């Protein structure tokens, strides 16, 4: 399965699953990353990690390691 980690800068995707340990999962969900929501990857930090996302109209940043918990598919 493709994860948020592999999404190119500027690409928009749809979330199909959220996994990971309980705390991370809850945190992602609280921030609005849920099955069915759309995410745009805005850019990576200058050193390549973390990444900046556009989720429900606001900017969110995640480490790539954590972005791996979010399964995505193209829109």
């Amino acid at each position, binding site marked *: 399965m493709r994860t948020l980690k592999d999404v190119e800068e500027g690409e928009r995707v749809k979330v199909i699953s959220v996994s990971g340990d*309980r705390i991370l999962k*809850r*945190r992602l969900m609280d921030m*609005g990353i849920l099955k069915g929501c759309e995410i745009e990857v805005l850019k990576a930090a200058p050193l*390549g990690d973390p990444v900046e996302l556009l989720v429900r109209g606001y900017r969110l*940043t995640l*480490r790539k390691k954590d972005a791996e918990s979010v399964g995505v598919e193209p829109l």
Partner: protein
Amino acid sequence: MKKNIALIGNPNSGKTTLFNALTGGSQRVGNWPGVTVEKKEGKLRQARDVTVTDLPGVYSLSPYSPEEEVSRRFLVEGSADAVINVVDATNLERNLILTLQLLEMGIPVTVALNMSDVVERRGDTVDEKKLSERLGCPVIRVSALKREGLENLAATVLEQASYGTRIPKKFFKCELSKAISEISGMLEGHIGDDLLYWYSIKVMEHDPHVPEALPSPVLERALETVRRTEDSLGDDGEAIIASARYEVVDSLVRGIYQKSEKGGKSVTDRIDEVVTNRWLAIPIFAAVMFLVYYLSITSVGGYMTDWVNETVFEENVLPRTADWLAGMGVEDWLVSLIVNGIITGVGAVLGFLPQLLVLFLLLALLEDSGYMARIAFVMDRILRRFGLSGKSFIPIIVGTGCAVPGIMASRTIEDERDRKITAMTTSFMPCSAKLPVIALISGALFGGSAWIAVSVYFIGVFSILVSGVILKKIRGAFGKASPFVMELPDYHVPSARNVVLSMGDRSWHFVKKAGTIIVLASGLIWLLTSYDWSLNPVGAESSMLASIGNALSPAFSPLGWGDWRAVVGTLSGLVAKENILSTFGILFGMEAVAEDGAEIWTYMATIMSPLAGFSFLLFNMLCAPCFAAIGAMRRELGSWKETALAVGYQCAFAYVVALAVYQFGLAIQGTPSFWLIPAALLVIGTGYLFFRNPGEPEDEVPAEAA
């Protein structure tokens, strides 16, 4: 009427600005019991007998972060009669997730719809009347920054606070709603009616705090319903609830928030194109760091600190008080206690204030403008494998000027464990008070070689990174790590009021918390250096401190400097590291010692070899910092136990490094001693602590580190 109002909202929703506007200057800052989360209280301007408690900024009331737990406990325990929920109108969906959770609790909620002016400037509209109808609670349009709508807000929340009953709002639909009612039926009688609905949702979410509140057979039965619902909806309970909340919010805001079709790039987008740009981000960060360091340590803050220390205290307050007391016929010992013990201690605290004020002003500007979050974003990659945050750069860099503001700067790090580890390791950097000690050793034993200073800086950085890894692997100690899932807020012009209040709060907190320990500890060292064991006033060379130094000196022989004078010098460095020089001066019978200790260079060479001198220097750079820095650490770590652990760790680490350098050095020179074996074992032990895998997934060092 005496009422308690809680203020809650997402981080960056303008909550602090609203709190400041509602309470004026009447606030008290403290910590929530048991955690290092800041607690602020104030009196409502419109009604002085109403207390407003500013709960920490949270996105949710999940049970996983200290901030969320603190807020949740406060609300569940019924400590608030009503709640003001600050909602950022520019980010309605995510903000309303928290609102739903508050309404589920049944506490009377008043929504303060903040930044609706920003929404309108964008050409968008929010219909707060419709929102209020759909939520079933008052929604008041406010501008915290321009202080608009505050009277209306205060009047509404006071009216709400007078109701006194909890009526939970039920938003969930269909199958989930049925399951929750079923659970409520089973919990009835075990949970008060007020919180029945809320606890039923928590059972559905598998909340870790539920078992404390329910007898296990009841919980077991309720969990059967949960499992059935999970099977039927195809997800776990926590995810079902989270998705259901977003569905509710989506339908709530439908038709309420109208977006204009203009689109295009926002101001924040344009700023970020430069500030987090692949090539410019790090140079810009370096420039900002330089400015923070320059303004707080070198120029403005530094000059004022020197002025307070030298002109105010050393040249005026101290001699004048001494003369004045002597003139009144006060006994010598009492004059000495007052002048060299108490006033010197107070002076040490006040001397740091100018630097701290400037630093806290700059930090507040960085935080309030939104740049601080970008620092974490840009620098995260470098420091996170060492148990530190991207924001740890600020404490470490400021710490090369003075560890006290450095340690206090760690306050800006949200994650508890990152913050504590940063506070514990910042003092490994050589601060300006350690420079004279470096000059002494390099001048006396190494012909003034600049390599000594350079190597001390490298070893400082090395110690921070190694300790970061070791400390973050100690399970259960120094707080929990929380995942790095961070909002990058819109940039905005900082509010002068917020910045000034934040600067004042933090500085005052330093004086109160760190000040006490500094004054007490300075007094104790004064007593130990001025008296012998029968409390006769004596010179430092025959004082209690000297005999303590003598007793301790065998412990330092393996480090190459078992001479009692070196040990006494080290102890006196606890007051301030530059005291090491003046103590050596006294012990070698000198009147005064220059900045680099040139007078005592020849004497130093008689009590230690160059190798031993280097070991002495390393120990003094890395061991327990001065009392002021220990006081600052106490403030950030939140308990004496953790402070003692931190200082213990620093001393043990310093001992291992100094021992290893001396003993391996001897071996390389061809004269190994017996202590080479313990030294090697300790190095292996430290290596184990560094490389071990504690078996907790969140704690592993990322594999790509290699």
